[in-house]
């Protein structure tokens, strides 16, 4: 069931928030094998659900999220509740305020049932956390869910909650969405407030929802988008109307299908699935335009320098506690400390150049369609994957098509577009112009409808 379907049931009395919340909490406990949650808020959630039911009975309905059980990744500060970022470094961190995202979900009437598990410090893609165990992919529990928002994707894919918030620094919303078969959007830089989010990075962090449908993602973003004076990186560009409605059309829309990089060195069934999405888009009246994209591999490399330097700067006060940081994460944090400042500054300068080069793509097309990842979910514990006969580090492979988009700041969504021969989900990524989330949702919803 989607948020909008649940909202209808709540509206016509076929369900109550109390029932939905009880069901959600029971499902989370039943699927404890997924290890998708770090914290359950049973009593608070049940009380909140009763409050939302009372409000509804009195005639006050806040919107489509009113009374809907949701979850937030454990990077979002929650007043009076632990916010650990998946790390024992922050095991005792109990903020005295809520993140802006939590405030907005609260104002929209959502019922937060818990905080989802994640890759340690959000610094990785496997969600195989050395301290709190691996998150398991609900489609095949021997597989990773992707990360870093792995718990959020697993929770949504397994129908434990209707929506879970994630954060995305180099693909951490879109990648788990693709690996678990959910929708996940990374909005434009500045679109969603970062106030009260434990940061991994200054330049690249973005917040967004993972959901079971594109329209659900749109209604959640509607509740979250907007200027926040407490976040210096928050944008004053007004939010538009995001919900594409039940029957969006994309006639005449120009969708770029990259002729380089994105369809190279990928699983055969991933290529087939994405080409099928392009074919369906044409059937819907869109024009598929072959485009050559600038050097994404170069953009990815520069992105890794920015991330390494910024993450290490942020974590510096904690880096003497090496015994509380996992081996792989520590290696990344040590790399960031050793990089010269000149490299970081030059990486930021190259980023500006890349932004100008990539922006020329928008002269040719309105959106770009790519695979979200070159592969489907690897097995838990794998450090290398073999894609089209080439062995590659799991982390580099998984982020190949998503990482660079954070450097550009553009909105990008991942939608499910089929499965591989083993039944593992495949994701398609739709990238749009800055602040054109409405357009991204429209194209994604139309394709979602055509994919069935």
């Amino acid at each position, binding site marked *: 069931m989607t948020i909008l379907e649940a909202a209808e049931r709540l509206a016509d009395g076929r369900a109550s928030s109390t029932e939905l919340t009880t069901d959600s909490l029971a499902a989370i406990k039943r699927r404890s094998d997924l290890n998708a949650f770090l914290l359950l808020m049973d009593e608070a959630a049940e009380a909140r659900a009763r409050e939302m039911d009372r409000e509804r009975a009195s005639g006050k309905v806040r919107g489509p999220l009113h009374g809907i059980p949701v979850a937030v990744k454990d990077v979002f500060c929650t007043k009076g509740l632990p916010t650990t970022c998946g790390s024992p470094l922050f095991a005792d961190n109990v903020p005295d305020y809520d993140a802006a995202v939590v405030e907005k979900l609260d104002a929209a009437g959502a019922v937060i049932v818990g905080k989802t598990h994640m890759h340690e410090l959000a610094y990785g893609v496997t969600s195989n956390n050395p301290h709190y165990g691996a998150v398991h992919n609900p489609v095949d529990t021997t597989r990773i869910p992707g990360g870093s928002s792995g718990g959020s994707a697993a929770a949504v894919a397994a129908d434990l909650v209707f929506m879970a918030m994630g954060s995305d620094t180099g693909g951490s919303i879109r990648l788990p969405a693709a690996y678990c078969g959910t929708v996940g959007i990374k909005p434009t830089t500045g679109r969603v407030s970062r106030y009260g989010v434990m940061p991994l990075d200054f330049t690249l962090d973005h917040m967004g929802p993972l959901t079971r449908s594109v329209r659900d993602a749109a209604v959640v973003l509607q509740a979250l988008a907007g200027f926040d004076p407490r976040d*210096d990186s928050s944008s004053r560009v007004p939010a538009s109307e995001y919900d594409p409605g039940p029957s969006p059309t994309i006639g005449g829309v120009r969708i770029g299908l990259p002729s380089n990089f994105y369809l190279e060195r990928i699983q055969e069934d991933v290529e087939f699935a994405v080409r099928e999405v392009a074919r369906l888009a044409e059937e819907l009246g869109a024009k598929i335009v072959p485009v050559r994209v600038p050097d994404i591999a*170069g953009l990815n490399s520069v992105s890794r*320098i920015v991330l390494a330097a910024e993450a290490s700067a942020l974590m510096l006060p904690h*880096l*003497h506690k090496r015994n509380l940081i996992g081996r792989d994460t520590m*290696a990344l944090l040590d790399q960031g400390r*050793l990089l010269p400042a000149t490299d970081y500054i030059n990486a930021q300068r*190259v980023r*500006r150049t890349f932004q*100008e080069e990539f922006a020329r793509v928008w002269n040719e097309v309105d959106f770009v369609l790519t695979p979200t990842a070159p592969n489907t979910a690897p097995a838990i514990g794998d450090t290398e994957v073999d894609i089209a006969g080439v062995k590659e580090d799991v982390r580099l492979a998984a982020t190949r098509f998503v990482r660079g988009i954070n450097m550009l700041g553009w909105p990008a969504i991942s939608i499910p577009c089929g499965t591989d021969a083993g039944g593992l989900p495949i994701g398609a990524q739709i990238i749009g112009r800055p602040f054109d989330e409405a357009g991204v949702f429209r194209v994604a919803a139309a394709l979602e409808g055509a994919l069935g």
Partner: protein
Amino acid sequence: MTDWKAVAAAIAPDIPEEQIERIAPLLDAMRGRLFEQTGRIGKVTEPCYIQAVQEMEQ
């Protein structure tokens, strides 16, 4: 190649030697890829200038 052990010796908290040996090739590769890109830097307004103006505007 950079002598990463010498660089690490100058910063605190310490990074164990075996860690430096593990990450040195990664750092060299990362920097090598960056250097391939720095030739792209053209007449761009530098990020710190943009930030300085934004701070004045606030």
